[in-house]
């Protein structure tokens, strides 16, 4: 049964701002599908301020957990089972590597690019 969307807070990690590479504009689709014990896409390019939604299609619990824990970044979401979702808004530019805490071979990355408009 889908669980309510979980808003985890805003990323306030101080990171080196990244401008969009010319060939790497942010993806229009900001959904990451979790299927067969993998994040798809593995690497997501987005603009700062974008909300990413993870959708679990596996019949098992996964998590979306920042690989290097930081007190300023509350990215540690549980995807309880098939159909569950979680959202996170990335407000600052940077590269965010995450994994599933239960299956640590599952890894993904969100690259957040500076839009030039800081919130």
């Amino acid at each position, binding site marked *: 049964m889908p669980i309510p969307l979980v808003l985890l807070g805003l990323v306030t990690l101080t990171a080196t701002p990244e401008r969009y590479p010319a060939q790497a504009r942010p993806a229009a689709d900001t959904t990451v599908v979790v*299927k*067969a*014990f*993998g994040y*798809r896409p593995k690497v997501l390019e987005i603009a700062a301020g974008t909300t990413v939604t993870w959708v679990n*299609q*596996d*019949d*098992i619990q996964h998590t979306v957990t920042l690989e290097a824990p930081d007190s300023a970044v509350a990215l540690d979401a549980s995807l309880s089972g098939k159909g569950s979702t979680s959202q996170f808004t990335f407000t600052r530019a940077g590269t965010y590597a995450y994994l599933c805490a*239960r*299956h*640590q*071979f*599952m890894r993904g990355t969100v690259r957040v690019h500076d839009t030039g408009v800081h919130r």
Partner: protein
Amino acid sequence: MMRKTLQSLIALAAGLALGAAPLQAQHAHGMAKASDLRVALNSLLAEHIYLAGSATGAALAGRQAEFQAAAGALDGNSIALGKAIGSVYGADAETAFLGLWRKHIGMAVDYVTGIATKDKAKQDKAVTDLVGYSRDFAAFLNAANPNLPTEVVTGLVKTHVVTLKAVIDAQASGDLAAAYLKVREAAAHMGMIADPLAAAIAKQFPEKFAMK
């Protein structure tokens, strides 16, 4: 050598091996058959038991060099199984499978360590982890192939855990006759996983696997 042959067989059967002949040509020669896949998976999964039993037996008897050799061969078997899955479902699935498969081997090692050190809590945790793992592994297979119901596969993997635990317990008790009997039982059970897995893959990809 046997492992390499099995890997080649699976890759060939899947019709996805690099440089393999076109699938139509394989069918024409009767190579890409569901039965080949079933035989290959049965062999690899039975090998898993024999090598795991060798590793746990050596570990419990304190034969360190033999344990290391067996553990290395066991990991080679895991890699071959991963490549078999990858040849059907792709590189990401291979990575996921190998991660999951190695995880349950680590849990079995924890159980053996718990016995060797007479640490009952460690043994109990390892068993709990292995039972929990059964559902994870089943969920992976179900995600890859909906023809494999999660609950059914969970039960099959739990039985794998139970049969392998019986091997380890017999080895620990010093009853070698019982240990080898349990090894045979555990290996025979792997057919209960290999057969439906091969059948489900063949059903999912009928264009790749001729049914006779």
